[in-house]
């Protein structure tokens, strides 16, 4: 067996173990806190598969996570730690809302324009912390987190003062034109065209990172910025570029989520997909191709916990415990090292025989 395939085998086994252990841990916690643990456990694990509609919920839930996780992947690959995916996603929603309400375009074109505007706004948002760092070496971690709040209030202000539906009793925008919506693709669920777009974006991001010069430069800079400088790559510009592209992806994600699932803007706080996107990106080991799988898994846990909260006495917060445990275990590199070593030794000695 080649070392590469050994590594793949060990990695995927490790992932499986992590998932199983996480699930066991959940069961254990439920057993301890619940009066009817079996109801809770079964609704958590099997609930999401009980109806077509619920399976649909998993996939719908995965769509925004795919976009934010792809954005996080790009930013982390460039060695940056901007948390802007959250803000870019939310401002992307605003962009799509405005285009959906104010422009009058034919059905095919309308969502495209809306998504382009969403992506543009997302990119601009992401450029701010990136440029602040480029110019004045301000930590992008801090500025992006602060900017996320500013964006949140800016978006709510815009909706409240410029696009609010005066008829509605709570905060909600006017309805967007039906031409702008993304159509459903699976009858009996709310799965929409956005799923396909998300998958295409995953493939494109993978291609960008591993098959294009710009992606190669991002990885170089992310691994060793001094080295990049020494070979004549303008590392600061590459870092900004990576963040801008990431912002665009997150912004488009916001637009897709909005146009696929809603007909008017109703959020009072930013939905937090940017933060969960970090967990998804890490679970996918910063590999864009793995992102959809990781997103679906996290979405499954979210749906399961929701069902459990409704049908038993255990709260849905338990899902955060699982996410935390999974992250910890993924980070624990020593897990299965011994097994990997034995396989490698066996294959290396077998090759000696030739």
């Amino acid at each position, binding site marked *: 067996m080649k*070392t590469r395939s050994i590594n793949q085998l060990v990695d995927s086994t490790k992932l499986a173990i992590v998932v199983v252990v996480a699930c066991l841990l959940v069961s254990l916690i439920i057993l301890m806190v619940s009066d009817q643990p079996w109801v809770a456990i079964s609704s958590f694990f099997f609930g999401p598969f009980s109806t077509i509609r619920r399976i649909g919920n998993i996939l719908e839930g995965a769509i925004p996570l795919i976009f934010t996780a792809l954005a996080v992947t790009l930013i982390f690959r460039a060695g940056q730690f901007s948390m802007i995916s959250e803000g870019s996603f939310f401002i992307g929603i605003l962009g799509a809302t405005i285009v959906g309400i104010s422009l009058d375009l034919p059905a095919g074109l309308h969502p495209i324009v809306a998504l382009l505007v969403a992506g543009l706004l997302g990119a601009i948002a992401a450029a701010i912390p990136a440029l602040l760092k480029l110019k004045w070496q301000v930590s992008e971690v801090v500025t992006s987190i602060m900017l996320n709040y500013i964006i949140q209030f800016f978006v709510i202000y815009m909706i409240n003062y410029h696009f609010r539906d005066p008829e509605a009793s709570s905060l909600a925008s006017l309805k967007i034109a039906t031409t702008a919506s993304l159509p459903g693709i699976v009858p009996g669920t709310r799965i929409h065209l956005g799923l396909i777009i998300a998958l295409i974006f995953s493939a494109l991001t993978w291609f960008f990172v591993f098959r294009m010069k*710009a992606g*190669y430069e991002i990885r170089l800079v992310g691994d060793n910025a001094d*080295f990049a400088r020494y070979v004549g790559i303008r590392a600061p510009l590459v870092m900004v570029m990576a963040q801008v592209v990431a912002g665009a992806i997150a912004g488009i994600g916001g637009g897709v989520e909005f146009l696929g699932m809603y007909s008017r803007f109703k959020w009072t706080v930013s939905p937090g997909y940017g933060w969960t996107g970090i967990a998804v990106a890490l679970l996918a080991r910063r590999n864009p191709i793995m992102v959809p799988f990781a997103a679906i898994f996290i979405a499954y846990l979210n749906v399961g916990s929701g069902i459990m909260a409704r049908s038993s006495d255990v709260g849905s917060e338990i899902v955060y415990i699982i996410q935390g445990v999974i992250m910890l275990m993924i980070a624990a590199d020593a897990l299965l090292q011994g097994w990997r070593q034995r396989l*490698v030794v066996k294959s290396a000695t077998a090759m000696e025989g030739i």
Partner: protein
Amino acid sequence: MTALRMEHITKVYPNGVVANRDIVFDVAVGEIHALSGENGAGKTTLMKILFGEETATEGKIFIHGEEQYIHTSQDALKLGIGMVHQHFMLVPSLTVTENIILGIEMRKGLSIDYTQSKKLVQEYGEKYHMYLDPDAKVKDLSVGQKQKLEILKVLIRGAKILILDEPTAVLTPQETAELFTELKHLRNEGFTIIFISHKLSEVRELCDHITIIRKGESKGVYALADITDEEISQKMVGRDVELTIARSEGKRGKTLLKVENLSVLEEGGKPRVDNVSFNLHEGEILGIAGVEGNGQSELVDVITGLGNFQHGSVLFQNKPIKYNHVKEIREAGIGHIPEDRMSIGIASNLSITENLLADKTRWKEFFGKNGLLIKQKIRSFSAKMVEDYAILCRDPEVPISSLSGGNIQKVVLARELSSKPQLIVANQPTRGVDVGATEFIRKQLLSMRDAGGAVLLVSSDLRELFGLSDRLLVMYEGKFAACITDLTSIDEQGLGRYMLGLDTQDTEMVMRNAQ
């Protein structure tokens, strides 16, 4: 009497590399024993196993005849084994004493007994003729002194068996001679020393026996009196190696690089490079000699765009070189083999292939018109590099960090030389590489020169400077102490005197000859 015996040692790294294969290694008490082999032969690995930093996959270790299980370096130290690593392991901001007692602090109540520690450092220094100022900061020490400090550190921890992994790679001849006196002195005191070096002359001067390993396997133990240099390199490399390279007379062409009144000042205004001028021509190898830290690195940084300068100018093909314009400088045709290859010369988590390509992002044959990687071309290019430079690896897609020290160096060289630069700034190009690769690299530099290119060669290996340079500048405290146009007119000792500032040539003459 044997000090140590390693029996049937096999080591397989997690990535599947078999670094040691059934090696038997025997060292007698009170001898200096050389361990030699090509880059990646497995020398460091074998020594790390002895020192408890790696665990052998198979095999036994006997110390003074008794089988021992060494799992950590603490275990090794308890058995009296100490190791000085290939790269320095010191804390620059701490003093000599603080570095030595790190981890074995003597306590006085809750605080560290500094006076007592200082006394200990002084005592040991005197006892072993390695006197160092106990209060000096490590960052102010010369490389030779740092090397002494590393050895003193091991001695104070009670080691009787010393492992020295390429200790001379960074030393000047004077410092090396001094180190050798000390090592011989230690041998007479009954210490056992394992000495790793790629320089046969050093091995011959210092050692009693040599164990040669090749591709992880032992090729035998020899008394140095019974084996010639040619036989040693033959056994290491598996073919005959030319130890001295024939070179033709150079044909000096147009001026390629013109440095005029260049000064580099440090923060406080003290000059690191002090108003120097010189020209470098097509078809010429210009050597720069000097003890490390006399301005060579700053000079190299300016020419390659990595370092700033305050006065003067640098013209390459009549165009000024500007600070930070690395991309333009490389496009103009300047290549750079950096001294500190581990920290700026590689991206350690990327593959060998990706490291080879890093300076070629403008090459259409690899990156296409629309910025797509042309995988096929890239793959065959990196396969060719791995073959030409004999880079030892399982395949070119493994992370570069899994290569041995010398093989990492080869990747850097392969990248820089394959870009066909007009001028290559080579800073210590053969440091840490084996005889075969040294031969190859020197030939490459010479053939670049013969094809009309220019080489600025900064090296602390005097034989290399003598063997390759057409002209030689000696740097001392930021200035040129001498410019030697006829290399037959001077020997290593004489050159050493210029390097230490004991002699200087007439300034007028240096200026004239440097043009």
